[in-house]
């Protein structure tokens, strides 16, 4: 793996949460490299540190120690404001509960991400292709409450991609979906990865979902314990 093709380089990453007077270690020394254009699945039991790892890569929380270089910049050395800037452009989040703003239409949920990052809600002309690929172009003027779970998750994926992030972080994206919608969303993620070269990191409990990735990382007790390389070609 060359330096240039590595989009995420994590070394000896530790994260300790202070709960009252007790220190709770969430990550105990994680080392991980992710290649540009890779589709990586992170699996592990609850409390293994998967979400904490995502939150640090996505700049939602700083690490306690270690380095996390994302697209050439070390998150560990960033200020709050720099991490906020990073979230605008470098990463896009997809959550298990979709996390759409309930008062806005699907279109406006996507547009507000654009507005936050660029100051204008106007979408790129070629973004329409992604909306077609996601199969939501005809549902954009509905509010989340009028959309199915699968449609809401596809809107959330569109929102995560609207600023052309280097990395898509999907935290249990099929956790709230039935098997048909899960398969549709996973196929979409794989298509985005293969057709557009989008780097994707996906947390999942589901081995079938993990099988859509190029590589699987197993975590337990705040550490990576195993790598599986899958042949997706």
């Amino acid at each position, binding site marked *: 793996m060359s330096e240039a093709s590595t989009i995420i380089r994590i070394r000896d990453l530790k994260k300790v949460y202070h709960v009252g007077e007790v220190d709770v270690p969430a990550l105990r020394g994680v080392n991980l490299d992710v290649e540009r254009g890779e589709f990586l699945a992170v699996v592990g039991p609850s409390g293994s540190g998967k979400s904490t790892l995502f*939150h640090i890569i*996505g700049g*939602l*929380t700083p690490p306690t120690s270690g380095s996390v270089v994302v697209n050439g910049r070390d998150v560990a050395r960033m200020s709050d*404001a720099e991490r*906020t*800037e*990073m*979230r*605008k*452009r470098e990463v896009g*989040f997809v*959550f298990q509960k979709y*996390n*759409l*703003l*309930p*008062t*806005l239409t699907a279109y*406006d949920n996507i*547009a*507000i*991400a654009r*507005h*936050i*990052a660029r100051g204008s*809600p106007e979408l790129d002309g070629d973004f329409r292709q992604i909306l077609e690929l996601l199969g939501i172009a005809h549902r954009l003027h509905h509010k989340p409450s009028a959309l199915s779970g699968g449609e809401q998750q596809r809107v959330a994926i569109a*929102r995560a991609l609207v600023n052309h992030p280097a990395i898509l972080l999907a935290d249990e994206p099929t956790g709230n979906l039935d098997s048909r919608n899960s398969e549709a969303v996973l196929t979409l993620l794989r298509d985005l990865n293969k057709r557009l070269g989008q780097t994707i990191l996906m947390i999942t409990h589901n081995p079938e979902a993990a099988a859509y990735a190029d590589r699987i990382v197993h975590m337990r007790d705040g550490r990576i314990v195993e790598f599986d390389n899958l042949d997706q070609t």
Partner: protein
Amino acid sequence: MLNKLVLENLKHRPVRTALSILAIGVEVTMMLTVVGLSEGMLEDSARRARGAGADIWVRPPGSAVIGLSSAPMPEKILEFFRKQPHVVIATGSVAHPIGGVNTVTGLDFEEFSRMCGGFKFLEGGPFQGPDDIIVDERYARQENIRVGQTIRIMNRDWYVRGVVEPGKLARLIVPLRTLQELTGNTGKLTQAYLKLDDPANTQKVIDSLKAQLKDYQIYSIEEFTSLFSVSNVPGLRAFIHVIIGLSVVVGFLVVFLSLYTAVLERTREVGILKSLGASPAYILNILLRETALLTLAGSLLGIVLSFGTRWAVMTFIPASLTQKTVPEWWPIATGIALAGALIGAAYPGWKAARQDAIEALAYE
């Protein structure tokens, strides 16, 4: 985009939004009503003073400009005034408060009518006996009084002899002698009025009177009516400030509670916006816009409601209170309401802006 989000958020909780707007509306109405009443009543007093038709007003030493003290001056002084050059009419009155802001005024009806150009009777006519009373149309409307009726004022029954158009000094007029005796001021006056041959001589006459009558308060009608201002009524400005202060506290509390609950309710939304890269300033901007929109809507409602309070005052108690429409206060009241609301938005806004994104996203 932000305005759309703010508008959708407000539409999402219509009852809370409506109550917030109503509360801010009441706050603005309180301000506009108290200012409108203060200015309206002073203006009405000044208008009625001008309606007396006098060029010069004379009040005894030590009396207050606004409000009639019973500090009397001798009635004989009218003879002195009549002898002065340029004075055509000199007459006087006795005033006695009867509760609230109303007073009964004792007049030499014929002399005063000559000075003011005559009363216009809407019903009935001039005094025919010592126990007669003449009221103006506003007082008659407020108290539902008709000519021929007997009304009890100052523990005495008065026969309503006439109802006149308002605007001539007093709302309740009784014969001068009767009121002088009734108040123990026989041969005394509360104030005197001088009509000159030519208003151009006013200053000359005033200068001459001031030289002869030390300590008496002698005003031209322009000077006298100019003294009907908020700053010349003891305690009125402080009262207005207290009401405005209370209004600001109401606005502050309403916006604080409204936004505090909104921020709690939207904790997850704040987390979502932060995960998209929204800065604390961006979050704060949303809440401040929401506050500004609530305040502007509330202020508009408050302005409309102030017309309602004015209608109620002028319909039900037109003789006791007069409320003026004060458009020059609309932006001031809106600004004051906005300041209170922004202070109220400060803590919820700060709380939302500082919210931890991960905790916010986990909020159920």
